[in-house]
């Protein structure tokens, strides 16, 4: 694919900012840092907020296009960038700004991996609730920029609920900050909300503070099987109306179940997997309330393995089916069943197989579509049809798309939020459009 060339004088400047050892020009290494088939002209690894600001300020003056990168777990999402003059790794931003387990908060650099963060706070009996796919590689900065969440989203809220402070450098090279390190804080604009899920198009996130939670001392997972999606969603509704407050509540379609390791445990039907935390008495109450629909209860190693597989699903599906399109949806609760019905109908009329998995108690759904073996089909058109039929308040993004469809299927097609306002915000922080150019909505 295309490779941009960065003039030597630019590279010289970048070396002065980051140090010669942290400017990557080796073609083989740059090849490995491809984003959607596009090879960066140069990559930099700044070690501080000041260095990030200097790189962006310089890039802004020169009009260079910059793509931020962390652990490369979500770089297959979005449209093909229009150019990558500079790939900026945040992986060396690994400071700890504050951490006192008694405060149940931590402030850290964007380069921390989720696994490192979880392990650090786990040692003090605390939980970081951002259970991103591939936590060994996924970074805090990437998690925030992509707004990815996992099954714990059900019980602990989303990033927007527990990210309490954020530091960043705007596309025009200004160092910005929102919030702070206390759990309650309304001083100034809530820039945490603005940057979470902004796909690296407004600013490069350099660090963040999070609310932490006491880690559950005991959990158990209950699996209930159903013949249809509608019945599974009815079961979800009965759980949501009950006094129970599980930490995870996940819907798994038959095809999605088949892709999970230990698939036999989940069964071939539509499943609802519910994870509860609490004492023996609390778990006994779950058993009583959940009733006969539960066909399986697991804990310990099997339980951890199942949830890890669910967390990693957005990675597993494209690995197993490189020809698949993976769509992430956020829906009002009552729209989940109609959207699943629509998915089934689009799949059936286009010779496609589909898998669906999701934190349906909060309206999150991941949907994979791929051609039935040996059938000729127009997957791109099917995806477009599916998206056109989504209800009003739904939003959808494409997390993975086979290479041949990338130019045919726009990655970000639907949001209920006013587009001109989105553009106004982009202009305020990155007027020259240097960050992730062409990758997102514009």
């Amino acid at each position: 694919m295309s490779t941009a060339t960065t003039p030597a004088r630019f590279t010289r400047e970048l070396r002065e900012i980051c140090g010669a050892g942290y400017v990557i020009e080796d073609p083989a290494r740059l090849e490995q840092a491809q984003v959607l088939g596009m090879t960066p002209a140069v990559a930099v690894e700044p070690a501080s907020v000041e260095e990030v600001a200097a790189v962006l300020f310089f890039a802004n003056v020169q009009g260079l296009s910059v793509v931020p990168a962390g652990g490369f777990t979500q770089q297959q999402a979005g449209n093909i960038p229009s150019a990558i003059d500079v790939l900026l790794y945040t992986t060396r931003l690994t400071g700890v700004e504050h951490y006192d387990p008694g405060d149940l908060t931590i402030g850290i650099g964007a380069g921390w991996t989720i696994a490192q963060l979880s392990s650090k706070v786990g040692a003090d009996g605390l939980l970081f609730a951002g259970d991103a796919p591939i936590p060994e590689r996924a970074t805090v900065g990437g998690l925030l920029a992509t707004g990815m969440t996992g099954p714990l989203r059900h019980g602990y809220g989303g990033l927007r609920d527990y990210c309490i402070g954020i530091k960043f450098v705007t596309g025009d090279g200004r160092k910005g900050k929102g919030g702070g390190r206390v759990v309650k804080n309304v001083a100034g604009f809530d820039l945490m909300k603005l940057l979470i899920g902004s796909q690296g198009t407004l600013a490069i996130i350099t660090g963040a503070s999070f609310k932490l939670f006491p880690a559950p001392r005991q959990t158990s997972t209950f699996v209930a099987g159903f013949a249809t999606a509608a019945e599974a969603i009815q079961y979800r509704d009965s759980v949501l109306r009950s006094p129970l407050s599980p930490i995870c509540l996940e819907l798994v379609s038959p095809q999605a179940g088949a892709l999970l390791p230990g698939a036999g445990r989940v069964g071939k039907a539509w499943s609802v997997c519910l994870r509860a935390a609490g004492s023996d008495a609390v778990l006994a109450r779950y058993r009583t309330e959940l009733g006969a629909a539960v066909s399986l209860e697991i804990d310990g190693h099997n339980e951890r393995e199942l949830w890890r597989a669910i967390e990693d699903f957005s990675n597993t599906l494209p690995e197993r089916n490189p020809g698949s399109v993976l769509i992430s949806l956020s829906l009002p609760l009552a729209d989940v069943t109609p959207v699943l019905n629509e998915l089934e109908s689009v799949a059936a009329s286009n010779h496609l197989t589909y898998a669906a998995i999701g934190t349906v108690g909060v309206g999150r759904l991941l949907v994979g579509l791929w051609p039935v073996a040996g059938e000729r089909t127009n997957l791109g058109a099917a995806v477009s049809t599916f998206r056109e039929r989504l209800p009003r308040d739904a939003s959808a993004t494409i997390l993975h798309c086979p290479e041949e469809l990338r130019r045919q299927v726009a990655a970000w097609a639907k949001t209920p939020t006013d587009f001109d306002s989105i553009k106004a915000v982009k202009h305020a922080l990155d007027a020259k459009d240097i960050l992730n150019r062409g990758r997102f909505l514009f």
Partner: protein
Amino acid sequence: MNLPGVVDDLRKIVGRDAVLDRPEDLMLYEYDGGVRKSTPGAVVFPTNTQQVSEIMRLASTNHIPVVGRGAGTGLSGGAISQAGGLVIAFSRMNRILEVDVENARAVVQPGVVNLQLSEHVSHLGLYFAPDPSSQKACTIGGNVAENSGGPHTLLHGVTVNHVTGVEVVLPSGEIVHFGGKAAESYGYDLTGFFVGSEGTVGIATAITVKLLRKAEQVATLLAVFESVDDAARTVSAITAVGITPAALEMLDGWTLRTIEAFCHAGFPLDAGAVLLIELEGLREAVEEQAVAVSEVCMRQKAREVRRAKTEDERALLWKGRKMAFAALGRVSPSYYTQDGVVPRSKIPGVLQHIGEVAKKYDLIIGNVFHAGDGNLHPLILFDMRNAEQYEMVLAASRDILQYCIDVGGSITGEHGVGMEKRDMMRQLFSDEELDVMISLRNAFNGDEVLNPEKMLPMPRMCREIMGASQNAVLAQEGM
């Protein structure tokens, strides 16, 4: 700015009886729950979004500053107009537009009173979680503007955690939508950005909020301590055993005696401090937590831990807590409420500091606050007629907030920055960080028609600094 000249145009939009411009009528709108005052030039009462849009267009064209106003219960001057400006009051936009049980959402107009929404959906087993002490009067539009909290935000979060969509009228008069009924919407989270923007981005005309299901079991405990210090240390001791109460409030001895004299909530008169602790959830979990929390309190030298046995007892304890401000009104002509926040572990230190500040400035300062999330409300008593004392109050207040900042906290946890803390934003944010916020505000409200001179301080050196370094680079590049 020529407000008198457009009053007739305003009447054409909303009707003759929906515009106030006589001085005696305007006096009611010159203050909020804080200490600042400013008289608007007119107050207009729209009944629908279209009217708000036409009002905004008229105001923008004529450069008339505009502020939205709900019940005026705010404590930071957020709803106070510039002198001679226009107030859009939302008392006639007070309808609950939709209750969507399946999606656990309600869509409300901004003038709906906070508690009314919870009462309206109570028969469905649902409620709206943010519960400011003023919830009997304050409006959801105001809650959105200030990102209001309340005692139960410890478990459930502040207003922004409960808003998924807003219909907004921009200064241009354009009506736009951010988000909807889904928990999150892709694209930028402008809903989250809008909540807490203190009326400086746009005016919300319809708000989509989450409705939560009422908990099966609630336990309300009153832990009585001999000293403020023991109570303060108990706060992080409770979270250290892995329990997050729904609410964890602290009242010091002086404050609870003042409340008790006012409304007989059942607080012990001889205590140094009490913690009001509420646990909610599954029956089995709540019962276990109630035992564990009581044990922690006793280990931290509580004299006793009482549990409300009936719903009436529980309501009485909360009445005592929520009437704190009213009770103070009886013993002092004026009081000033601060809203600083500290990390939980710093609560003992900050309370000690507040005691020292009271001595230093010779003031009475009571403490009633959301201890669980470190959100203080020191109540400083004074007499507004005593100008010298008023200055002392402001100095004491700055002193306390500076301490909060120094230990890693914030100047406001739920009341907003508004007018009074605007200059202290510079202690929390650098000029460059404020410049980023200003450019975002200007993206929507560049002429500062909406709520001018609130929240964000005037830019200082920042533009000159940026300009200088930019020029240096340009020169270096030979451009």
